[in-house]
């Protein structure tokens, strides 16, 4: 029982990271029906910005995270403007291929600029401490990751539910043309969505750096794909779905590693994708509405 609880503790941190990345996938999909395959790489860029903020600027971890979030918000807005906006009225496959192109571009421009080798997150930025809670070993990095992720999700929920910007985002994702008739600027709203989604990915990147202590230019690929599975599991386009899906994926992965073999954890993650697509393609929170013609 103790071991099981310990696995849950481990799974929660990983799940929090997946959930933050999954939110960006789902928000962007909700508003422009695009799977932004470059999203995992934005998380990687965020991790590097965090790394340089810690090492070159000598900031603390919180400042590093905020810096990464701001930088990636800007990056997200630029990517949307340059790569996706010109394709707004083209086929979805054209935008999807472009997203893969952006993904490869971010990966290899980072390798070109910084080299392919991994960099070690400075340990002094986040000295690891372990707490003993009734036999459970809880690391301060677990607490840091889960608490900051939950705080970010609460802020996001507040923005989406209560602010004018958040309501406009929902309106645009529900009916773009009707939103225009309200006087909502669709371009501006899409930019804000990319900014928020990318900032959350950047936060996840810095957490990932703290959690695994290394960053490298290809680090975004696998977590990005798993977060995508998490977003589909929860129901793509549905924000609470992405949160729940992210945590479920994290828990599943640590359970498979803990009780099965860590060799299978990636296979299980993508097995989940196949299962959802077979059984309930709209995801846990999705309603079967069918495609509107």
């Amino acid at each position: 029982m103790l071991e099981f609880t310990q696995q849950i503790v481990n799974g929660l941190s990983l799940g929090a990271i997946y959930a933050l990345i999954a939110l960006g996938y789902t928000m962007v999909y909700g508003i422009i029906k695009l799977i932004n395959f470059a999203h995992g790489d934005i998380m990687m860029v965020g991790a590097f910005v965090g790394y340089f903020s810690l090492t070159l600027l000598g900031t603390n971890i919180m400042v590093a995270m905020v810096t990464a979030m701001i930088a990636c918000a800007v990056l997200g807005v630029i990517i949307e403007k340059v790569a996706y906006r010109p394709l707004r009225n083209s086929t979805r496959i054209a935008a999807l291929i472009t997203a893969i192109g952006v993904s490869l571009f971010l990966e290899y421009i980072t390798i070109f600029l910084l080299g392919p080798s991994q960099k070690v997150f400075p340990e002094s930025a986040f000295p690891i401490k372990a707490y003993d809670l009734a036999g459970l070993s809880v690391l301060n990095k677990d607490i840091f990751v889960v608490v900051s992720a939950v705080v970010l999700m609460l802020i996001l929920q507040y923005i989406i539910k209560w602010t004018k910007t958040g309501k406009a985002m929902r309106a645009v994702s529900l009916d773009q043309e009707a939103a225009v008739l309200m006087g909502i600027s669709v371009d501006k709203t899409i930019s804000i969505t990319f900014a928020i989604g990318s900032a959350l990915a950047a936060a996840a990147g810095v957490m990932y750096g703290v959690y695994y202590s290394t960053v490298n230019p290809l680090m975004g690929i696998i977590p990005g794909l798993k977060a995508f599975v998490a977003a589909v599991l929860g129901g793509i386009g549905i924000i609470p779905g992405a949160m729940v899906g992210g945590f479920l994926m994290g828990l599943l992965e640590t359970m498979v590693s803990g009780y099965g073999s860590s060799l299978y954890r990636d296979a299980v993650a993508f097995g989940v994708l196949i299962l959802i697509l077979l059984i309930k393609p709209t995801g846990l929170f999705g309603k079967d509405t069918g495609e509107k013609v």
Partner: protein
Amino acid sequence: MLRSVDLDVYYGAIHALKKLSIEVEQGTIVTLIGANGAGKTTTLKTISGLLRPRNGSIVYKNTELTKVAPEKIVEMGISQVPEGRRVFASMSVLENLEMGAYLRKDKKAMADDMENVFTRFPRLKERRKQMAGTLSGGEQQMLAIGRALMARPQLLLMDEPSMGLAPLLVKEIFEIIKDINEKGTTILLVEQNAHMALSIAHKAYVIETGEIVLHGEAKDLMNSEEVKSAYLGG
């Protein structure tokens, strides 16, 4: 107040509006009637800036609209009740109304307008926390009208507000349109229900395959043999 001159609008190769010229005088109800696919919705979409004409102009209060961004057009006082209501289904009634006032910053006056909408449509007040998608067709139409009113329009464009509603409700909706007009809002009403539209409108245009084929005082058109046989069922 609003005048379109020789509008040509295309959907790809399809010539949807052909040299369309209409005029809406301040304070009146003008109706545009015609069959399905004649170009009624296209006309409203072009005025709102969702579609751009290839040729021609739309002048609203001395401003050329064809190059103005759609959100600016709303700001200038033109709002639309779109065809098929198009309420934001998974947002509450209240949020839908707030979206109607998206560009406004005068909080106090917005609250007053919200109260006015609720006085006009008490059903919406009862259901203000409900998701718009759970409302009945008639209630959704009321919400779409209320939402457009929240922008405090000077010119209200209405696209088939009677569509899919029971006859009794249609009557109610037309009473409301008349009342909105009497309280000072100019209305351009697009309808397939020619009889109802002509009964409340001052001026009317008949559109067929993108062209205005007939126009005049609404009551004259009501008695015209052409309109009677084609649109009023004999």
